[in-house]
């Protein structure tokens, strides 16, 4: 568990999430967790392993299988000033909780001044042979919903820092943690208490020839692809996909004049539509090539390895998309 890993040790993305939960619970009694099988079992992916032992049943609550119910209940607890952190077993099950998220959590502050500080953790994404019900990237359904904040860490540091910031935040935050990154991404542990601010994007790689705008799993894919292409690529890691850090995107495109939007959500959902609309309206004069989109087709995530591997943006397919953009 994270407690045993020193600040300079190398930890996984998953361990960074666990450590953020543990540190947040140590720092603030109002923080408690609820979700399915998160107690003794430690959650479907083991993110909450050990937390029951340290914090007890009142703060690590196994719930019945009732996403709509326990997300609604978390909102009620947040109304009373608690800081609930909900774990959905898979992000796909967020469909069952759509109503309390968009109807109750998102609108309440705007129409009453009552803040709703909930965090909803959503294990998201494909590449894990999960098939159509356990591999989705449903963040796009919430992009554009006033009152929600949506964060998608693409690094170990942000996995920790964005979760700490989400739990501190007085607004409802959807936190999309990528399942494929859980054990594949490794880095030095960020300092205890580190916060990644909600809102600002980061420049994951600076470059002059083209911009990749991406988030979540796209960050490591884009970094690897950038190393393969003949051109100096800048990578904008959005970190927060709603509300969008428009300025960082626009500034990068002003410099590079070429842009590729990369996402794992199917091409007509995710954040891409909003980003491309922004670029069409605000970057038109700066572009030397049509804005490009690299994203899966408009289908659910398929199961068979032959299908899923072709569906997901890979390092190679992303490099090819970049080559095309640079050659235009």
């Amino acid at each position, binding site marked *: 568990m994270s407690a045993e890993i020193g600040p300079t040790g190398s930890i996984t993305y998953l361990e960074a999430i666990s450590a953020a939960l543990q540190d947040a619970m140590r720092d603030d009694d109002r923080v*408690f967790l609820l979700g399915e099988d998160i107690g003794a079992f430690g959650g479907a992916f083991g993110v909450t392993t050990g937390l029951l032992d340290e914090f007890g049943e*009142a703060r690590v609550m196994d*719930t*019945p299988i*009732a996403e*709509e*119910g*326990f*997300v*609604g*209940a*978390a*909102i*009620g*607890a*947040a*109304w*009373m*000033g*608690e800081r*609930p952190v909900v774990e959905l077993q898979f992000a796909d099950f967020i469909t069952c909780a759509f*109503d*309390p998220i968009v*109807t*109750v959590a998102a*609108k*309440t*502050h*705007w*129409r*009453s*001044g*009552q*803040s709703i*500080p909930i965090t909803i953790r959503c294990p998201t994404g494909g590449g894990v042979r999960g098939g159509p019900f356990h591999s989705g990237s449903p963040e796009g359904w919430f992009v554009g919903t*006033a*009152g929600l*904040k949506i964060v998608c860490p693409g690094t170990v540091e942000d996995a920790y820092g964005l979760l700490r910031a989400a739990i501190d*935040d*007085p*607004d409802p935050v959807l936190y999309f943690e990528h399942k494929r990154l859980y054990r594949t991404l490794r880095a030095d542990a960020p300092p205890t208490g580190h916060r990644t*601010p*909600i*809102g*600002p994007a980061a420049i994951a790689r600076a470059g002059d020839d083209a911009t990749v705008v991406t988030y979540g799993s796209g960050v490591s894919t884009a970094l690897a692809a950038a190393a393969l292409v003949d051109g100096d690529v800048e990578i904008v890691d959005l970190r*927060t996909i709603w*509300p969008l*850090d428009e300025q960082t995107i626009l500034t990068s495109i002003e410099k590079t004049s070429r842009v590729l939007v990369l996402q794992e959500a199917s091409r007509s959902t995710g954040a891409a539509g909003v980003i491309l609309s922004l670029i069409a309206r605000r970057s038109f004069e700066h572009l030397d090539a049509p804005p490009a989109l690299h994203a899966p087709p408009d289908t659910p995530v398929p199961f068979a390895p032959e299908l899923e591997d072709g569906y997901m943006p890979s390092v190679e397919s992303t490099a090819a998309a970049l080559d095309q953009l640079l050659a235009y």
Partner: protein
Amino acid sequence: MPIEPCAEAPSVNADERVELFRLVLLQRLFEDRVMALYRQGRVPGSVYTGRGQEAVAAGAGLALCPDDVVAPLNRELACHFARGATTADVFRNFFGKATSPTFGRDGNMHFGAPAQGVFPLVSMLGDLVPLVAGAALAFKRRGERRVAMTFLGEGAFSVGDTHEGLNLAAVWQVPAVFVIQSNRYSYSTPVARQMVNTNIAQRIYGGWSIPAERVDGTDALAVLDTVRAAVERARNGNGPQAVEALSVRMHGHAAHDDARYMPDGMREEFAERFDPVERLAARLALDGFDSHAIQGMRDAALAEVDAGLAEAEQAPAPDPATLENGVYAAPPS
């Protein structure tokens, strides 16, 4: 048939009876006034009333202590008054004024008062059930002797959230109180076409093991007595409680609905004998208040409605330039 006075209820003292009468009168007179304004075209949107159900709103509202919290629906105006809302607050919300409880961003009965522990109404039936289960969970976690209440119509009993919320409240054994407004209809659909067993109290006890009692929802004393007992059981650690209050919706679903689907004479016959305002007036008469005193209470409530309207009409309209303020408690940097 003559009006049936509220039954004697020793647990409800004289001051409480007078306060209940003030609350049911305020709801009745406010709603009559806002309906008239609507017909004059002076209220945007629609108007929902709780005519026939005022005793439930007043009795349940008065059953709460100041630190308790509540999430009322459309039919519970008197509950808002019990929690300290003024007639001006509510008129401002109907008019969509800048200084309304929702800043002009929502209308009619869609409002709350966070500072008074009143959650702003959410339309989607059933949403408030898990919400109060969660508020009650917060009280239990912190060891606070507080209670969270919400109201539900029959319609909510076909919605999945209601099951999830009642189940969570029961599994967690939290201090939540559910008050069911059984008024025989959901919009135009009679209750028998929504459920096979129309005894909702029985369903709540049988289905979720939440103690549930039926009460005459037109008898304000009985409602206060029964709901207060439920609230105190919840407060004392006996888990969630429910009360099903039986009444008849004396108006259509909303101002635009003439309720022609209800049998002829049903509402009139009901009102003759069970109008909750007049039942309480008759009780007060039996208690020794003379007609002069009772008329004085009616006049005072009417004056409160008049004053609230006058005040609300002066309130400024919202400024469209402020529309995007407050989307977030902490706007991202």
